[in-house]
């Protein structure tokens, strides 16, 4: 943002006080430039969308202007219509993610340490990993019915592997020199695990957690598009069937925001737990 822009938005009064203006302008600039560098392209894209839609460069019934999307989002949130969907979606992905964490991390810690267990399970793991969870969804439906269980299970299935594999990787990459050091101080297997292996694996585990959180939302939508009557994913589909395009985009936007929030929470947690690895701790 340039000097002129600031002046024009602040009005003519400021221009009469030359001593105040440059300082204020430079402060604004110092604040705005990094934002612009980071989000400039996003803002540009949104602006292009808005203009293209209102000017009729694209079909506004397929790409409605942003203000329509935002007001659709606001209306459905304020009226409480979407809240139920958000709640059920959070519940499905939350239970699945929590189960993947509770099973994936301990299993990964064991597998990373015990070569025999890892060798025995690795081919199976690699096979399942390469099989898309979505391809298995019909199987889960067959086994568990079309209700909540199969939806939660397919999300759980897809989120388990990133966490499991990241944990195994983290444990296996623990510096053996540190383990040896701990051994010379009389640390037994359990102490070494608790004080060396576990803390050393935390950064790798977080990589898996963040990957899994993204996967959870991805699978959530897919699961909710098949045989659901509630949920954000259902709303995306439903709005499209009913040609409520602004609402469809509103639901998509909500999903993106959900993903951003989930990632932000994990990043925050990681910062707290891995302060030692921060560049400016």
């Amino acid at each position, binding site marked *: 943002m340039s000097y002129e822009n600031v002046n024009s938005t602040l009005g003519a009064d400021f221009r009469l006080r030359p001593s105040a203006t440059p300082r204020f302008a430079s402060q604004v600039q110092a604040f705005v430039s990094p934002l612009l560098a980071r989000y400039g392209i996003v803002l540009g894209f949104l602006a292009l969308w808005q203009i293209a839609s209102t000017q009729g460069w694209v079909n506004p019934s397929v790409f409605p202007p942003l203000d329509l999307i935002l007001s659709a989002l606001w209306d459905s949130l304020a009226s409480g219509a979407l809240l139920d969907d958000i709640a059920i979606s959070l519940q499905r992905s939350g239970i699945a993610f929590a189960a993947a964490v509770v099973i994936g991390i301990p299993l990964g810690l064991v597998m990373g340490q015990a070569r025999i267990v890892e060798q025995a399970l690795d081919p199976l793991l690699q096979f399942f990993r390469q099989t898309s969870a979505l391809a298995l969804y019909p199987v889960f439906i067959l086994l568990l019915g079309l209700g909540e269980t199969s939806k939660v299970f397919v999300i759980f299935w897809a989120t388990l592997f990133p966490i499991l594999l990241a944990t195994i990787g983290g444990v296996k990459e623990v510096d053996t*020199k*540190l383990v040896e050091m701990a*051994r*010379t101080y*009389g640390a037994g297997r359990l102490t070494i695990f608790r004080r060396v292996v576990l803390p050393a694996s935390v950064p790798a585990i977080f990589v898996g957690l963040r990957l899994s959180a993204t996967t959870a939302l991805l699978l959530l939508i897919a699961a909710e598009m098949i045989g659901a009557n509630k949920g954000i994913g259902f709303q995306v589909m439903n709005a499209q069937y009913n040609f409520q395009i602004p609402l469809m985009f509103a639901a998509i936007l909500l999903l993106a925001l959900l993903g951003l929030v989930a990632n932000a929470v994990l990043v925050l947690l990681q910062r707290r737990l891995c302060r*030692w*690895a921060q560049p400016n701790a």
Partner: protein
Amino acid sequence: MSLAPATLRGEVTIRHLSKSFTLDGRPLPVLADVNLQVRSGESLAIVGASGSGKTTLLRILAGLDDADSGEVLIDGRAVKGVGSERAVIFQEPRLLPWLTVLENVAFGLDTRGVSRQEARSRARRYVQLVGLQSFENAYPRQLSGGMAQRVGIARALAVQPEILLLDEPLGALDAMTKISMQQELTRIWRDEDVTTILVTHDLEEAIYLADRILILPREKNAEPRLIEIDLPRPRDRSSPEFVRHREELLRLFGLH
């Protein structure tokens, strides 16, 4: 309470120690029938060309590797595996990156069941001894190489071992830091009642720090040699006696 007389504390006896590794399916002897007596409170340096087995010998003493045959006795008792009477200082500081300096120094006390409070106060004393009191709460990532190695030294000393085993502890430091650390080690050892066994490839370091130097030959049938360094501390690197010892060692390695 040990029944051994106080003078025996930290005495190491090595008897007929042999070890070979397997390389391409063939046994490669590294140590062949090594015999050695390290006196209580003595500082012994082990030097030798690479492949002479000096690090292997230290690892066996530390209990990290097993010998093929022979035995190690500490204060008259045969030992196997690691033990609380020994502490090891490695070439790399090997600090736990998620612990602060103070927590790292307390690590060996924690694992040996010393109460948290006692461990903290003892750790604090040793952090002070190596001059890092203003870095107690720093993380290893924030330390220079020399500072990190001091933390490693403090951690080893904090468990108050009878025997300190050092595997090229200053090998990764720059020349200036190295010299100041050697001076510091001399100062620390003067105050701590501990037997030290130091593996190094730096002949000057060996002469500066050790009471005796064991030279391990690369040829396994040759006898290891022992050289006595009877100079007052702190030692003067440019004194004629010091220089004479260095020439003697260089000659033994065929370098002078």
